[in-house]
């Protein structure tokens, strides 16, 4: 009898998919940081306007979104076949493919590959997958220093910080803070450095060039892995990625298994959707593609590590799997009112914002990130912005149900008891009408002002910042009965 492998969650104790605090607790701290609020508000509103302008240029944007969604749905349905094709083509062109079930396996594979080169320093292309698995820490534990080369990742790394945005990891920092970090942490930096963006970029450029020229090993992620030719592809803005992808002798690429696309033609859709949604550009400045090993040109030793780390488990849910369609553009973060105020660190995962709230709990198992599906007012701005039409609000609601269902059976929480009672009351009109009438007892409150400014827990969370209306003298139901008789 054959069986289907339904996957296992990303393991605990490694990588950055779980926070140490619940979202409400972490958000409370972030909300009080006026500098963070200002930085995020400024950055997200700027990028929202840029995105809206370039998306508005295309008459067929909605058709492109539908095409992107259809391509991803079709690809996920035969993911195994596409991955095996990718493996065959990469291998046929001189690369080596490794399969990593989880973060620990991926970290061990990459560490072993670097150790085999004898090097103790590697340069990195910006990559979410390697942030997810905590690769830098794993390499450090093995005595290997990983240098981030994406400008924003460099700022985060020098600042001893964590990324707070998928595309703009240092979005929580402003120019003045970046200057301070450079002055403090960048060896040999000009002490007269100002916060002028051009000068900050030049300082980073000088710092990074030295590393590019001496690096023998580079580590990257991939935006797309094209199955039918075994080609990997990275899109970026700075050219630092291309430095890493071309100069070193050895290139190791860590790619989540959901990043495979069947053919080059699929990029016709995705390379229109991605830059406009992410940086608000018609086309990103650098698109680098490589296929296996080309003798005498570029890295002569190429390894592709295919990472599961909870993705197969996510794929097992026929609705939830849509989260794997994500092309990591960050449009949903930039339009999210919760992200804009609480910031990326509050989500406790390298995948913050709306997509993080549906992806992280599925990669780890919902109980390990149980507060994330609730970190949304379900306003729907994310769904509208998503270039591959992931219905994030519906996924959030689904994950909330999975969390509630996972906690059934024991002693019900106060919330569960209240919800069950409300369902019982609302299932019949008699009970509902009686409950409505009973709420008039609330009129004992707020008699002098007509509003209620203080209620007991859990409703105190409401009245901490908003008044509550005083229950009416007469409900609509009573008014209708009095005026019109019952129907």
């Amino acid at each position, binding site marked *: 009898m054959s069986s289907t492998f339904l996957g296992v969650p990303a393991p605990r104790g490694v990588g950055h998919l779980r926070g140490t605090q619940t*979202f*409400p607790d972490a*958000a*409370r701290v972030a*909300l009080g940081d006026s500098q963070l609020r200002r930085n995020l508000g400024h950055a997200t509103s700027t990028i929202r306007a840029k995105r809206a302008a370039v998306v508005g240029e295309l008459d067929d944007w909605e058709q492109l979104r539908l095409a992107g969604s259809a391509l991803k749905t079709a690809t996920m349905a035969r993911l195994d076949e596409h991955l095996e094709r990718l493996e065959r083509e990469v291998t046929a062109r001189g690369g080596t493919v490794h399969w990593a079930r989880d973060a620990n396996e991926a970290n061990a594979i990459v560490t072993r590959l670097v150790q085999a080169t004898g090097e103790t320093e590697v340069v990195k292309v910006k990559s979410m997958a390697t942030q997810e698995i905590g690769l830098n820490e794993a390499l450090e534990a093995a005595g290997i220093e990983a240098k981030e080369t994406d400008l924003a990742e460099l700022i985060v790394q020098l600042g001893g910080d964590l990324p707070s945005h998928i595309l703009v990891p240092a979005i929580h920092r402003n120019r003045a803070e970046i200057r301070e970090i450079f002055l403090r942490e960048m060896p040999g930096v000009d002490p007269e450095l100002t916060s002028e963006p051009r000068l900050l970029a030049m300082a980073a450029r000088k710092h990074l060039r030295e590393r590019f020229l001496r690096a023998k090993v580079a580590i990257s992620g991939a935006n797309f892995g094209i199955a039918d030719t075994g080609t990997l592809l990275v899109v970026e803005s700075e050219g630092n990625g291309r430095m890493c992808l071309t100069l070193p002798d050895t290139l190791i690429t860590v790619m989540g298994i959901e990043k495979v696309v069947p053919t080059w033609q699929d990029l016709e859709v995705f390379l229109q959707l991605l830059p406009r949604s992410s940086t608000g550009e018609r086309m990103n400045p650098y698109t680098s593609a490589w296929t296996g090993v080309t003798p005498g040109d570029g890295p002569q030793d190429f390894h592709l590590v295919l990472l599961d780390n909870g993705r197969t488990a996510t794929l097992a849910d026929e609705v939830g799997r849509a989260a794997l369609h994500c092309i990591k553009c960050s449009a949903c973060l930039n339009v999210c*009112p*919760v992200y804009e*105020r*609480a910031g990326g660190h509050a989500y406790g995962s390298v995948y913050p914002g709306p997509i993080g709230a549906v992806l992280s709990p599925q990669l780890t198992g919902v109980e390990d990130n149980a507060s994330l*599906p*609730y*970190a949304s*007012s*379900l*306003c*729907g*701005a994310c*769904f509208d912005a998503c270039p591959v039409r992931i219905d994030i609000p*519906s996924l959030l*609601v689904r994950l*909330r*149900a*999975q*969390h*509630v*269902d996972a906690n059934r059976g024991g002693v019900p929480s106060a*919330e*569960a008891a209240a*919800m*069950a009672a*409300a*369902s019982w*009351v*609302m*299932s*019949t*009109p008699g009970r*509902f009408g009686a409950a409505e009438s009973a*709420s008039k007892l609330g009129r004992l409150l707020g008699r002098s002002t007509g*509003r209620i*400014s203080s209620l007991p827990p*859990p409703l105190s*969370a*409401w009245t*901490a*910042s*908003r*008044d*509550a*209306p005083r*229950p*009416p003298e007469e*409900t*609509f*139901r009573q*008014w*209708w*009965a009095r005026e*019109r008789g019952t*129907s």
Partner: protein
Amino acid sequence: MAPQVGKATVTLLERLGHEVVFPSAQTCCGQMHTNTGYQREAVPLVRHHVEVFEPYDVVVAPSGSCVGSVRHQHAMVARDAGDDALADRATAVATRTYELSELLVDVLGVEDVGAYFPHRVTYHPTCHSLRMLRVADKPLRLLRNVRGMTLLELPAADQCCGFGGTFALKNADTSTAMLADKMRNVLSTGAEVATAGDASCLMHIGGGLSRLQSGTRTLHLAEILAST
């Protein structure tokens, strides 16, 4: 909690010459349960809603959020519970269910309801009306025809007020931060009244404005349209 909204809806529709029936057996659409994760507890509410409203030609609710739940969640709740027959019935009821501005503009073809409301008003397009139902500018078309009223444009109007049902309790701090920005934008217009098509969002915005003694109050769209 907001009987004035229902009364205004009845007043308005009867003034336009329509027969309004309030099936007194109705209770709640169950959105709170569904959106908080208690989908199983929502099933009897969906069933009850379908049974109560099935006999009617057209159903109207002066709430974008409730209509959004009926239209986008009821069938899903039934189907997830394994009751495909209920899901089909829920879909049939949903296709005949309209938010108030949809009913007026799309079904009844009315944009001028003959209202008079001599005040400065700003309109907040609530998230579910805007993005689940796509009511677009229908409420604004109705408001622009209200005599005596000055309609003031709300900055960043499409941003959520932070209500989000139990979100306002579970993530009260983030909700309040969103509310603070919404109130700042409302107050920047100089409006006396902030209006919207959802009593729940208005309870949130109004609760904040009242706590600050801001001097700006909230009224449901139906209340303005019912005024003469």
